[in-house]
């Protein structure tokens, strides 16, 4: 076997970009395909090896999952596809599958003598690209190369989103996608697009598209760095190139980052997808948004939906938000949630576990869990884009958030978002707790929220607040969605940390309102805090958001509202708090972050921004927002500092805001938990 040849041919073919785009596969392919076979049964292992060799593949066999993982980690890009048995003594095959999917993003084929439907279904939900029943015949093995090709193709497609939001992985509705993409394009996508246009992009593409694409083993640390970078940049701005620069990891290429980003987003999407059913919130949000969107004050009741509805948030984001948020189907339409409620919402205490869980997990996982799920943050398109990118689930949220992009009501959106967050949180707070997790599943949501928040960041100088945990999403977000989507399980959001949220309140970022929120979200706070720490870096993410964030100077009242532009209303919250009170916001954002963290860090970037904005917003809300006239981009940095808030913070911030109506400093922003201030925009 000459793996190199096989690959090389592909590589060459791809150099022209044909490989990936045109799916033109060199003749030699699939010869040389590098396969890793894992099975504890020695007989099967030998037989498989023999068969694969007969197919002219380059085979490496191993009988332990741990060994397989270390092999994969050591040889980044050393394999093209993995075939693994389901029942293994040292590690469950599905667990291995998840690890591989997260860290290396390789196609994995599961196999077993077990052909029971539920087992096969498990393979599907865990992301296996195929399932073979033993005894495996050589004919079945002959075609496994298709999975490699398909994956590469999809990855590129994702990157290509800027131009064409192919439905592809996007779960979003086509219309949303379009919407999103167009707006997103302006945001991240544009950059990605640009990148594409650039020569190096093309070249990079080629490289990545080739089978030979060096595989980076995304260890936990690396992933955390990635998430941090994404958060720092902000979802919208999370361009692989910049992420790469921020990460500053030698040997890491842009393609690696790009594909990982894609994967991450898919992952978030998957998470949110699981909880999609929960995301009826989005729907409600959207509708609610329309209704309530106009009234910022009514943010309370402003469910993200309304925000989303306001058209700001693309359906997708809403969905994601919802999904992310908590899968709370009840998109708090018309968030009439009294501030108190909002608090509750944020008092993620209950939900905390959800988020927390998710968050925790995600702290490192770059997938920002869209804690914001339900919160149809009015993330600005860009943000949405970012969010979208980062985590599909968030995207939904973002969509919502972005929708409002320029709305003064963005605040509302934010609020809505926050609401959604709140809702989400509430859900979690209450018995809903699971909601969050569900949203967790929707990492996207939180991200979305974050995104939304970011928009709001404009409002809050506190973009920090938004530090939104969107950035965190990775850490917290994951934990969030994870909780529910469970499959994603990684989301162990430490939400359970009610205490965390409480932290937020004190942060002061959230001023009274926020505090209230924070309190409410303390549940989250707790978790967020955790995330915060984790996501310290988040602030960066917010940057991106800030951009999107509309934190218009007209902040204060507007801020919250106007900034709601930030799709992730949550972000706004953060923003607010972050604005000046970055410290305070932090808290909030932390909380928010925590929340957002769950959302999945991917969104973090966005959410963060949004979150920050939210924070800022929130913070300012009570104090900051107003005072700070949303530092906008400037404040972005501030906002993001809190990135830790992740989306959750944003969410909480948003929720808070919503609760208090975007009115600045209103208690509306009960960003309890959401240290929206910190929305690092």
């Amino acid at each position, binding site marked *: 076997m000459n793996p190199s040849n096989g690959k090389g041919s592909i590589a060459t073919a791809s150099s022209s970009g044909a490989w990936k785009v045109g799916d033109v596969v060199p003749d030699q392919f699939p010869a040389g395909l590098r396969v890793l076979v894992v099975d504890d*049964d020695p007989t099967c292992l030998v037989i498989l090896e*023999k068969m694969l060799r007969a197919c002219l593949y380059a085979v490496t066999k191993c009988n332990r999952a741990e060994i397989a993982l270390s092999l994969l980690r050591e040889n980044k890009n050393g394999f093209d596809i993995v075939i693994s048995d389901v029942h293994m003594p040292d590690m469950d095959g599905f667990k291995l599958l998840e690890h591989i999917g997260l860290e290396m993003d390789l196609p994995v084929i599961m196999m077993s003598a077990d052909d029971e439907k539920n087992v096969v279904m498990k393979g599907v939900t865990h992301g296996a690209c195929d399932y073979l029943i*033993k005894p495996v015949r*050589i004919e079945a093995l002959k075609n496994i190369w298709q999975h490699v090709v398909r994956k590469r193709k999809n990855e590129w497609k994702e990157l290509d989103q800027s131009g064409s939001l192919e439905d592809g992985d996007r779960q979003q509705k086509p219309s949303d996608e379009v919407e999103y993409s167009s707006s997103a394009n302006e945001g991240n996508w544009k950059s990605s697009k640009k990148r594409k246009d650039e020569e190096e992009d093309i070249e990079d593409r080629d490289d990545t598209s080739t089978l030979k694409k060096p595989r980076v083993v995304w260890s936990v640390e690396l992933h955390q760095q990635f998430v941090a970078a994404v958060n720092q940049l902000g979802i919208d701005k999370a361009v692989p190139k910049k992420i790469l620069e921020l990460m500053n990891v030698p040997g890491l290429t842009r393609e690696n980052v790009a594909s990982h980003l894609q994967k991450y987003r898919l992952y978030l999407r998957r998470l949110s997808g699981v909880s999609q059913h929960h995301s009826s919130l989005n729907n409600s949000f959207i509708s609610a948004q329309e209704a309530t969107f106009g009234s910022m004050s009514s943010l309370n009741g402003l469910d993200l939906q309304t925000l989303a509805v306001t058209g700001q948030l693309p359906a997708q984001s809403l969905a994601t938000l919802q999904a992310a948020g908590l899968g709370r189907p009840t998109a708090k339409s018309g968030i009439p949630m009294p501030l108190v409620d909002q608090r509750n919402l944020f008092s993620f205490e209950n939900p905390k576990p959800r988020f927390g869980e998710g968050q925790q997990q995600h702290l490192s996982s770059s997938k920002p869990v869209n804690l914001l799920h339900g919160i149809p943050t009015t993330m600005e398109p860009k943000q949405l884009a970012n969010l979208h990118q980062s985590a599909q689930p968030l995207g939904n949220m973002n969509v919502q958030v972005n929708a409002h992009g320029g709305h003064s009501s963005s605040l509302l959106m934010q609020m809505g978002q926050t609401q959604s967050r709140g809702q989400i949180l509430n859900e979690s707070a209450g018995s809903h707790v699971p909601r969050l997790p569900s949203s967790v599943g929707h990492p996207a949501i939180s991200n979305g929220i974050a995104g939304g928040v970011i928009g709001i960041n404009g409002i809050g100088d506190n973009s920090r607040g938004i530090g939104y945990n969107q950035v965190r999403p990775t850490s917290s977000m994951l934990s969030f969605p994870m909780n529910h989507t469970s499959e994603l399980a990684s989301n162990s959001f430490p939400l359970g940390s009610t205490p965390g949220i409480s932290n937020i309140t004190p942060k002061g970022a959230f001023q009274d309102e926020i505090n209230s929120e924070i309190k409410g979200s303390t549940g989250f706070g707790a978790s967020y805090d955790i995330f915060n720490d984790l996501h310290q870096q988040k602030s960066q993410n917010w940057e991106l958001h800030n951009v999107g964030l509309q934190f218009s100077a007209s902040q204060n009242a507007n801020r919250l509202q106007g900034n709601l532009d930030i799709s992730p209303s949550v972000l706004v919250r953060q923003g607010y708090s972050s604005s000046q009170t970055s410290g305070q916001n932090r808290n909030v954002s932390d909380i928010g972050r925590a929340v957002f963290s769950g959302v999945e860090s991917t969104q973090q970037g966005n959410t963060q921004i949004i979150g920050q904005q939210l924070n800022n917003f929130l913070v300012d809300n009570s104090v900051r927002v107003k005072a700070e006239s949303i530092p906008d981009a400037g404040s972005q940095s501030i906002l993001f500092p809190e990135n830790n808030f992740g989306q959750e913070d944003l969410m909480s911030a948003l929720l808070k805001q919503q609760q208090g109506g975007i009115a600045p400093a209103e208690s509306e922003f009960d960003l309890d938990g959401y240290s929206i201030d910190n929305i690092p925009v």
Partner: protein
Amino acid sequence: MEVGQLQRRLVDYTKSLLTEGILDDQFSQLQKLQDESDPGFLVEVVSLFFEDSEKLLNDITGALDQQSVDFKTVDGYVHQLKGSSASVGALRLKNACVAFRSFCEEQSLEGCLRSLQEVKQEYYNVKNKVETLFKMEKQIVAAGGSVPKTE
């Protein structure tokens, strides 16, 4: 016996094993995989299978011999045996494993013990037959001929 005859005998023998269901098409597939570059492949795989299976049978016996039988563990072993049997083409053995598993699910100790007996029987049966097959192949090779591929 001359080579031609030996070869014919081998072919017939293999066919009969297939007909009886002791071996199935998977085994033929494995035979086809064997080529000049790797003439000992089939023997190697099957030996590996025997070794592994005997270990599994011992494990199962031990597990059923416990004061309090953990049927899950037993099921795990049987599942594995089923998988490898299927992979080498030991059809009857595989089917015996399938039946065994249902007893494990029912948590019927008696049923499991009986199944174990059946599985052991099938195992020794297929082991015997395949070893005979290999002997015949050796003979052919020793006589200067080449092992015919079974269609």
